[in-house]
Every structure is written in structure tokens, then in C-alpha cells.
């Protein structure tokens, strides 16, 4: 293998040789530069190959024939090889990206670029502390030179600010080095590590100065204003190197110093790192400039890795896996994003909407933010999982909580940005795409996915990129050029085929969920045939959600469950974001969902007690005092998906604003993921007590309140789809209540709700969506009298609301019947009363759907409306049939589950004899009820027709305004503010307290961030003062502690 020394020699030699070229020979100079960089990459890649494939041992490189400490030595090991490859690759790709600039500026700029890359490689390779200092200075000088590549004139002052801080850093570093040398008698890093007992005490000021100087290069909060200014003003291709390569090199330098200082210094690294991570992410919230925002995110990610460096004592042999996963995910994503930013003309975040004209670049952006947020299947995800379980296993809960909090902030601003891209107006200037600028971006995307595969392989868990459902979903990315109807057919065929192949593997409980997902999903997909064109982005997102859902019910272990949970969250987010006005709602959805996911992660990590993963079934083995906390974390996580009251504010907008065929998917199917989680949780952990409080009892209350308030909020809604969305909150409340009863019938009722809610909510959303498509509005008071024009939609709605309201003869009644039986066998009274109260409220809003939309007067502009499109009606009719079948024969689905539940709750099952179902308290015969109701209804209807045969119809304008001219026409519509009297009486209960709470919280965070970022006042001298103050304060905190 070529000696690693040639990395340095190639760069130096080429830079030197560039000086001999005539200034006119720029193409030659550029070719030489690229050739040198390719050669350097070749060496690094070769070493990576040698270490990975051949498993070779690290190689020591002696520079002048003497062993250390008499001469400087370098080392090439796996870490060094991987990091130099990262540095060299980002150098090469940036050089490619910078083609125009380098050719315009000539050979000197190319030499500086080569020196920068060489210096960073030197920092990684050297094992001599003074040599490290030299490479630091080289890197600083080259950095100051490369900053000037930018066309932005402000870069000049940014460069100077950097020089000031770099000077201060080198002063501290030199003092530290000379006294460390004095204490150990060597400059060799390994020699120092061996010789020094003094440095390892944690009180050595010499080591402190060295360490803090290196850490200062990692842009710790708050001594990092200079770095932000560089990120904002420098050329994006340089920022890519600065963020990806410099960050990696300096982090490795910090790791070398920790090798010298030993475990006593680990807490210092962790402390500085975590403060930086949280603070930088917080201050990023109010940013509007894209590159500065990326700068904050860079600083935060570097801080996170620094914190991980400080945790190497507990990470053990997973140290490189975790730190590497986070570092590579950050480096690749950040380099990619900076390269992307060079293609965008405007510097405000919404200017990135220009990407919309290039779906490939949107995919690149999504890849990058998914990597940064640690979503599957990227390396950061595996690293996050390992880190969480090891931290929780060692009881470092506060650190874990801070990491998750910071990560949530970061995901918040990244996904908000993505919302701008998809939803904001496209700027006039298009994306400037030249091949040499596109290539680095594509390379970063490919590298990201490849590392995702690699990390999956190394993780010791199942490699997510080998999971069939996920691969199926991802394959739709390659099929984007096909028309929508072909993709729709493929999606349906794939899901049904998967069900046919796997249905035998599920227990009855999971079978219900798998039928809803894999058969129910395709039924809703029928409505998607209505869409024409290619519908870019829809199928990958939808299939990602279904893949996540499928993997969720198939998961046996905690890791698989959590990975599936994140996949379905992300997929559904992309799906929800597609709605016309969905931007804010999709954002609140993803923030709540990721917050919930982090709770689940923390819960699993606590429960694992250090093990890499565990069978979900073994949750039952947990004991006090851990068990209730795990229970709370998991339950909270799952309830963000069921939209329990307090965590519900994302739901109305997300479901209401979604596209016609998306609303039933995210309502009818996706909400069940949360219930499934709760079922798994309650099935394994059962009743838990915390400080004497029965936690299932708390769940009962949450369920009851969700039912009551969800229903109350629904009755005051004017928008048909939002009304249905609020109603889901109530319905999920019922299901949570049923589960929390922790008895046989309660669970049966919850499962009945799972099935019923899927059928009728999908159906109602489709009919409301179909009507909205025809009328062009979702406001109910703008409709009316549509019964004759849209009879099929009417029938679907009628059947739907009969089913929802739980009156005979449809299956909703079955749910109620089981429910009444369930609470009779339970001893909770007050929540029960609340739940009873919620029932009639449901009537109020359901009634409006029929009354306001389909009955009453037809609007003038609606006279020529047609029935909703065929493909939207078709699934509704299938649902009508399903509802009728399920109403007459509920045993089809429930009987096996009833038997299955016996193993958990042997008491209180139902007896299934013929068509009659009986419990301890009574019996229910669905067939008889159906016949009775049909006969009564039929006779009454016939009688009504008979007596009304001569009735005169009231026409549209049979109305008198009594001399008044209506000020706002809708206020005179009878259906507007329909339940005003109720609002007077009960309005206090539906005040948006929860919304106010959460928006107050986000406002507070933003205000705090906006205030604190003024710390960075732009004055280089102030930044120098920040640095000095940082060093002093950290020193006193450190020695004080």
C-alpha cells in the first residue's frame, strides 16, 4: 500500500509545482490540482480497503528514520484512513464544485486549497503534539485564505475575525504544549499518554490549555461567533470543507488529547459538547439565512460528537460506531447541504422553494435532513439508538434528555425548512444546475445511503435497508417517471401480495391490524386512481408510511419496533405535507411525532438496561422502580400518535388539510399505530403504579377527557373535514379508555373501535373529500341540498354517521354494547360518566354532516354539480358493504380475538352462540336487531312518504329579511355557528388552552433564542473576548467542580 505520507507529499508537491506554472495555464493547474486530490483519495481509500477487507493492523510511519520521540511519527489506522478519506473526498468534490472560481482566481487559490486539505489530513495522521500545532496553524492560514474565495465582500471581515481567534487559540495551545512537554519530557502523543500521571489528574492547567485550545476550534458555545460569520459569508464549497472535513479533523484532534488526558477529562468534553449542542440548536430557531442556519446546525452536531467523545468510557467497543455514525452523517449531510445552497440564488430559507423544479434535488435535501435528524436508515439513526441505550444503561439520564431535546429542536427547524421548500412560492430565479456542481451533491446522496447500509450491517441489529417493505417503498423512488395509475396498481398489488404471503404469521390481534393496513390500505388506494399525471412524491411517501406500519406490527424486538415507528412517522409527514395549506400542520405533526418517538426511544433505552435490544414481550419482566417510568415514557410516546388530549393540536389541521385520499389513510389507518403501541405496552406491562397512583387509571382519565373534549370541539367546527378530524380525537379517546379498563371486554371494545373507526372514518373522509372536490369548499354552511345531486355520497355519509354514533343496527352499536358491558364490570365511576356524556355530543356534530351538507336548500352555484368522481365513490361503497357485513356478523373478526384475549384476561369473555352474543349482563343479536330496525324504519319511512305526498316544497327564496340587508351572508345561514347556544354554555371547555400552551412554549423558545443570539454582535473583538471569557469560565467551573 502507498505510504500515508504521500497524502501530504502529493498535496505539498502539487502546491509547490503550481508555483512554477505560468498564470495563463489555468486549465493545466486545475488538472494538476484535481490529479493530486484524486491521488490522495486513492491512498486513503486504499488504506480503508486494507483495514476493512484484510483486517490489517495500524501502521506507524516514521518520518526521518528515528522512532518517536526522536522524530515525528504518523499513524495510519482504520479511523485515520476513514477520516482522511472523508477529508480528501470533500476536498476533491469541493474542488470540482469550485471549478469556475478556481479557474478565475488562478493557481494560487488551488495551492491554498491543497494546503488546507493536506493540513487537515496532517492533523488526523500525526502523533506528535507540536506537529499537531503546526498543522493547526497551516489549517488556520489556509482557512483564512479560502474564506476569500467567496464573492460575498463580507467574507473579508469574517476571515479577520477568525484570524484574531486563531491567534488567541495558538497562544493557549503553545503554552499548554510546552508545559505538558515539561511535565512528560516528550512531544509524542502516545508517549505523553504513558508518561503523564500529572496530566491525567484533571487538575493540570497545562493539559487544560491544550485541550481548551483544540476544543475552541470545534466552535464551542458561546465562543463561536467567528465561525457563524464564516459559514454565512464564505463560498458554500469552502463551508462544506469547513463543516465536514475541518470538523472531523479537529474532533479527532480532541480525541487524541483525551487519549493523553484520560478519563478524568471526559466530563469536560461532554459538558462543553452538550451545552454547545443544545445552545446552537436553540439559537438556530430564529435564523432566516440558510447558510448561517447550517452553520448553527454544524456547530451543534460537532458539539454532539464532542459530547460523545467524552462518553467513551461507557461506549466501550461501540465508541467508533457511535461517534463515527454521528460524525459521518453530519459531515456528508452538511457538505451536501452547503453544496446545494450554492445552487440556490436567494439566501432566505423560503428561496429554497426553487428546488421544487428539480425532484432529484428535493430527494437529496430529504436525504440530508433525514441524516441530520438521525432518521432510519441512516448511520445517525443506529448511532442514536446505541448512544441512548448505553447512556440509559449507565443512568446518565440527564445527558440523554438534553441530547434528545437538542435533536428535537434541530429536527424542528430542519423540517420547517423543508415545509418552506414544498409549500412556499417558487422564486423567479431557477436552480443553477451545472454538472460539476450537481455531481458533488449526488455523490453525497450516494455516500449517505451507502453508509446507511454499512452502519446497518455493523449495527448488530437487522439491517433496515434489507427489510422488504422498506425496499418496496424505496423502489417507488425509481418509478417516479411512471404515470400515477400504474404506480397505484403496483402499490395495491404489492400490499395485497405481502398480506397473502404473510397472513399466517400473525396472531389474531396483529391480524386485525395487518388486515387494516395491508387490505384496508389498498381499498383507500382505489380512491387514488382519481388522480392523474405522475403525482411525484406521493407514492414513496405513502409506501414509506405503509412499510413502517407493516414493520411495526411485525416487530418482535424493541429496535425493529422503534425503527418502524420512525419510518411511519416520516412517511406520513411527507404525505400530510402534500395538502394545499398543510405547511404549519405538517410541521406540528412531525414535531409532536418526533417528540413522541424520542420518548419511546428513551423508554426502550431505559427498559433495555444496557442490552442492545430486547424482545417486546420481556417488557413484562421490568420491575420497580424502573417499570413505571418506562411505562410513562412509552405511553406518552404512543399517545402523541393517538392524539390524546393535550397532545392533539396537530391532528385537526393535519387530517383536515390533507388531500382527499390522504385523510382516510392518516386517520383511518395511521392513528391505529398509536393504539397498537398502547396495546403492546399494556399487554406486556399491565398495571403500573407510581407513587401509589395507578397509571392505567390516569390513562382512563386521559381517554375519557379526550373523548369528551374531542367531541365538543368537533361540534363547533364549520369545516367538514376538520369536524371529522376532531371526531377522531374523541374516537381514539374511547379506544384508549377501553384499553385502560384492563379487562377483557374493554380490550374487545378497543379492537372493535379499531375496526369501526377505520371503516367509517375512511368512508366519511372520502365522502367529505368528494363533496369538497365538487363544491370547491369544505365549509358546511356553503353547501346544502346535495342529497339529490350526490346520492351515493349521501348514503355513505348516512351509513357512516349511524355507525359512528353507535345506534342500532350498525356495528357502532356493537362497540357501544361491548363498551357498556365493559364498564359495568369495572369500578371506575367518574371517567365513565364523562364518557357517557361524550356519547350524545357525538350526535350533535354527526347530525350536522347530514343536515347541513345534504339536506336543506341547494345553493344556486351548486345546481349543476355531479356525483363525486367514480374512484372516490367506489371505496365508499365497499366500506358501506363492509359496515353492513360487520354489523350483522361481528364474530367474523372478533370471535378469534375474544378467544385470544382469554390468555390475558381469562375472566369476562363473551359467549358466541349462533348469531347471538351474550355476556354476564345480557345478550346482543346483531341479525335480529338489523331486521327489527329495518322493519321499523321501513314502515315509518313509507308512512312518511304517504302523509307528505301533498306537501309543498319550500323554495330557495321563500325568505324575508324583514327590511334588513345581511351584513355578512354566511351569518344569516342557519347552519353557520349552528350550535351557538351550546357554545355559550360549554364554550369554556373548548377554549384553545392546549394550543395556547404549546404556541406559548414555542414563542418562548424563539424569543429566548432571538435574544441570546444578539450575543454575536459581529465585532471581532467581542468574539475574542467571548473566547477568553469562555476559557476562564470553563476553567473555574471545571476546577470548582
Amino acid at each position: 500500500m502507498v505510504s500515508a505520507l504521500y497524502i501530504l507529499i502529493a498535496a505539498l508537491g502539487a502546491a509547490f509545482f503550481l508555483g512554477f506554472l505560468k498564470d495563463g495555464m489555468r486549465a493545466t493547474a486545475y488538472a494538476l490540482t484535481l490529479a493530486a486530490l484524486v491521488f490522495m483519495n486513492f491512498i486513503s481509500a486504499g488504506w480503508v480497503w486494507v483495514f476493512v477487507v484484510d483486517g490489517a493492523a495500524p501502521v506507524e510511519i516514521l518520518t526521518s528514520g528515528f522512532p518517536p520521540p526522536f522524530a515525528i511519527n504518523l499513524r495510519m489506522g482504520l479511523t485515520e484512513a476513514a477520516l482522511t478519506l472523508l477529508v480528501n473526498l470533500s476536498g476533491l468534490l469541493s474542488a470540482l464544485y469550485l471549478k469556475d472560481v478556481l479557474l478565475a482566481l488562478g493557481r494560487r487559490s488551488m495551492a491554498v486549497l491543497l494546503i488546507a486539505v493536506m493540513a487537515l489530513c496532517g492533523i488526523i495522521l500525526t502523533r506528535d503534539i507540536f506537529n499537531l500545532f503546526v498543522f493547526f496553524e497551516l489549517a488556520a492560514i489556509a482557512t483564512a485564505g479560502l474564506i476569500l474565495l467567496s464573492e460575498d465582500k463580507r467574507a473579508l471581515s469574517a476571515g479577520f475575525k477568525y484570524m484574531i481567534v486563531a491567534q488567541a487559540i495558538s497562544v493557549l495551545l503553545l503554552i499548554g504544549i510546552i508545559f505538558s512537554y515539561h511535565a512528560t519530557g516528550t512531544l509524542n502523543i502516545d508517549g505523553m499518554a504513558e508518561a503523564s500521571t500529572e496530566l491525567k489528574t484533571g487538575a493540570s492547567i497545562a493539559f487544560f490549555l491544550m485541550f481548551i485550545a483544540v476544543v475552541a476550534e470545534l466552535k464551542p458555545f458561546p465562543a463561536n461567533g467567528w465561525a457563524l460569520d464564516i459559514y454565512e459569508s464564505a463560498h458554500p464549497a469552502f463551508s462544506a470543507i469547513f463543516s465536514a472535513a475541518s470538523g472531523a479533523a479537529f474532533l479527532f484532534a480532541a480525541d487524541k488529547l483525551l487519549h493523553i488526558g484520560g478519563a478524568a477529562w471526559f466530563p469536560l468534553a461532554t459538558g462543553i459538547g452538550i451545552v454547545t449542542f443544545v445552545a446552537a440548536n436553540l439559537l438556530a430557531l430564529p435564523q432566516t439565512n440558510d447558510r448561517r442556519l447550517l452553520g448553527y446546525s454544524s456547530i451543534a452536531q460537532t458539539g454532539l460528537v464532542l459530547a460523545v467523545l467524552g462518553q467513551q468510557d461507557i461506549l466501550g467497543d461501540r465508541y467508533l460506531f457511535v461517534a463515527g455514525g454521528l460524525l459521518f452523517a453530519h459531515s456528508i449531510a452538511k457538505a451536501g447541504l452547503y453544496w446545494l445552497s450554492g445552487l440556490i440564488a436567494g439566501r432566505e430559507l423560503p428561496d429554497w422553494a426553487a428546488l421544487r423544479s428539480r425532484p432529484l434535488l428535493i430527494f437529496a435535501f430529504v436525504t440530508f435532513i433525514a441524516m441530520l435528524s438521525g432518521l432510519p436508515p441512516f448511520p445517525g439513526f443506529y448511532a442514536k439508538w446505541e448512544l441512548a441505550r448505553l447512556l440509559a444503561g449507565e443512568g446518565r439520564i440527564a445527558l440523554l434528555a438534553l441530547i434528545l431535546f437538542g435533536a428535537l429542536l434541530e429536527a424542528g427547524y430542519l423540517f420547517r425548512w423543508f415545509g418552506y421548500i414544498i409549500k412556499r412560492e417558487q422564486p423567479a430565479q431557477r436552480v443553477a444546475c451545472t454538472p460539476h456542481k450537481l455531481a458533488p451533491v449526488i455523490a453525497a446522496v450516494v455516500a449517505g445511503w451507502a453508509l446507511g447500509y454499512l452502519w446497518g450491517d455493523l449495527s448488530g441489529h437487522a439491517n433496515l435497508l434489507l427489510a422488504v417493505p422498506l425496499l418496496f417503498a424505496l423502489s417507488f423512488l425509481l418509478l417516479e417517471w411512471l404515470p400515477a395509475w400504474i404506480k397505484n396498481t403496483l402499490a395495491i398489488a404489492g400490499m395485497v401480495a405481502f398480506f397473502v404471503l404473510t397472513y399466517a404469521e400473525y396472531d389474531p390481534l396483529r391480524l386485525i391490524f395487518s388486515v387494516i393496513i395491508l387490505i384496508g390500505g389498498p381499498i383507500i388506494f382505489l380512491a387514488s386512481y382519481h388522480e392523474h399525471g405522475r403525482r411525484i412524491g406521493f407514492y414513496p411517501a405513502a409506501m414509506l408510511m405503509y412499510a413502517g406500519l407493516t414493520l411495526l406490527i411485525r416487530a418482535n424486538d424493541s429496535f425493529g419496533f422503534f425503527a418502524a415507528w420512525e419510518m411511519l412517522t416520516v412517511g406520513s409527514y411527507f404525505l400530510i405535507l402534500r395538502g394545499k395549506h398543510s405547511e404549519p400542520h405538517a410541521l406540528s405533526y412531525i414535531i409532536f411525532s418526533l417528540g413522541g418517538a424520542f420518548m419511546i426511544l428513551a423508554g426502550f433505552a431505559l427498559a433495555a438496561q444496557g442490552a442492545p435490544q430486547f424482545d417486546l414481550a420481556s417488557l413484562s419482566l421490568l420491575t420497580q422502580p424502573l417499570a413505571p417510568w418506562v411505562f410513562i415514557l412509552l405511553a406518552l410516546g404512543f399517545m402523541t400518535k393517538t392524539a390524546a388530549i393535550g397532545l392533539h393540536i396537530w391532528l385537526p389541521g393535519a387530517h383536515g388539510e390533507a388531500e382527499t385520499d390522504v385523510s382516510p389513510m392518516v386517520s383511518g389507518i395511521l392513528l391505529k399505530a398509536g393504539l397498537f403501541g398502547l396495546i403492546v405496552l399494556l399487554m406486556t406491562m399491565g398495571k403500573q403504579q407510581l407513587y401509589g397512583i395507578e397509571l392505567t387509571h390516569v390513562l382512563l382519565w386521559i381517554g375519557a377527557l379526550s373523548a369528551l373534549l374531542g367531541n365538543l370541539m368537533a361540534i363547533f367546527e364549520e369545516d367538514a373535514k376538520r369536524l371529522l378530524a376532531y371526531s377522531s380525537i374523541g374516537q381514539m379517546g374511547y379506544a384508549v379508555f377501553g384499553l385502560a379498563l384492563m379487562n377483557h371486554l374493554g380490550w374487545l371494545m378497543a379492537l372493535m373501535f379499531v375496526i369501526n373507526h377505520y371503516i367509517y372514518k375512511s368512508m366519511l373522509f372520502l365522502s367529505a373529500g368528494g363533496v369538497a372536490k365538487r363544491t370547491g369548499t369544505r365549509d358546511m354552511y356553503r353547501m346544502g341540498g346535495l342529497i339529490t345531486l350526490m346520492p351515493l355520497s349521501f348514503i355513505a355519509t348516512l351509513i357512516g354517521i349511524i355507525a359512528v354514533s353507535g345506534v342500532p343496527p350498525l356495528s357502532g352499536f356493537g362497540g357501544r354494547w361491548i363498551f357498556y358491558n365493559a364498564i359495568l364490570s369495572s369500578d371506575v365511576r367518574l371517567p365513565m360518566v364523562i364518557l357517557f356524556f361524550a356519547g350524545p355530543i357525538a350526535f350533535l356534530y354527526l347530525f350536522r354532516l347530514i343536515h347541513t351538507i345534504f339536506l336543506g336548500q341547494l345553493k344556486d352555484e351548486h345546481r349543476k354539480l355531479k356525483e363525486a368522481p367514480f374512484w372516490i365513490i367506489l371505496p365508499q361503497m365497499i366500506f358501506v358493504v363492509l359496515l353492513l357485513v360487520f354489523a350483522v356478523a361481528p364474530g367474523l373478526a372478533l370471535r378469534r380475538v375474544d378467544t385470544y384475549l382469554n390468555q390475558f384476561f381469562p375472566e369476562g369473555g363473551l359467549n358466541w352462540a349462533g348469531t347471538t352474543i351474550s355476556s354476564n349482563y345480557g345478550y346482543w343479536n346483531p341479525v335480529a336487531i338489523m331486521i327489527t330496525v329495518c322493519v321499523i324504519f321501513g314502515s315509518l319511512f313509507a308512512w312518511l312518504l304517504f302523509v307528505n305526498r301533498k306537501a309543498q316544497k319550500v323554495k330557495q327564496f321563500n325568505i324575508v329579511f324583514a327590511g334588513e340587508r345581511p351584513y355578512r351572508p354566511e351569518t344569516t345561514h342557519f347552519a353557520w355557528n349552528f350550535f351557538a347556544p351550546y357554545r355559550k354554555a360549554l364554550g369554556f371547555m373548548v377554549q384553545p388552552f392546549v394550543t395556547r400552551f404549546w404556541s406559548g412554549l414555542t414563542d418562548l423558545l424563539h424569543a429566548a433564542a432571538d435574544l441570546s443570539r444578539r450575543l454575536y454582535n459581529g465585532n471581532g473583538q467581542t468574539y475574542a473576548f467571548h473566547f477568553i471569557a469562555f476559557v476562564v469560565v470553563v476553567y473555574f467551573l471545571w476546577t470548582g467542580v
Partner: protein
Amino acid sequence: MVYIAMATGFLLILIGFYGALTNRNLLRMIVAFSIADTGINLVIISVGYLPGRTAPILDTTVTAAAAAARIIDPVPQALVLTAIVIGVGVTALMLAYTLKLYEKKRTLDIAKFTELKW
């Protein structure tokens, strides 16, 4: 003697930092950092100094065999040489920056270059 040199070195470093933090003029800041650099060089040299010994130059008076007992530590001196070279490079670059900054705004006041902030 060693301690006087070392104390002077630290004093120079502090003077340098003080100057860099209190002078808003770019050139004065560069001068201040040069003073701090000098202070560092002094500190490094004083760390390597051993009383009663001679310069680390091997010739007829100090043979290679006797060197270990008779010369002062040569490593800090080598370091200082490197540090001086680097210091010159950095100072030159900062001066070049200053020139450009002055051309841009016709001022040397660092407080005037705050377009980038927050």
C-alpha cells in the same frame, strides 16, 4: 533568572491580550498579538533552559558523548524557531487582510466591520 524570563514572557502575553482586547485599531491588534507571540517564545525558551549549561551546539567543546550532561534542552529551541516562522506567516496574512479591509471601508476600526452578526 529562568523565572524572570518566564514571568516576563507571561507578562508579555497578558499585555498582548490586553492590547488586543482594548484596541479597536486593526494594526494595533496585530501588534498586540505580535507582543503576545514574543511572550510565548520567551516562555518556551525559559521552560527548556537548564542553569549552568551551554547552548545545544555540538562542536569541539561539547562532544556528542557529553552532550546529555552539558547542554540545555534543544527541543524548545527548535519549537520556538518553528513558532516564529508560523508567527511571521500569520502576521503577514493578517496584515494583508487589514490592507483589504482598509481598501473596502477606509477605516481600521474593527467595530465598523459588523455586517455579519446574530
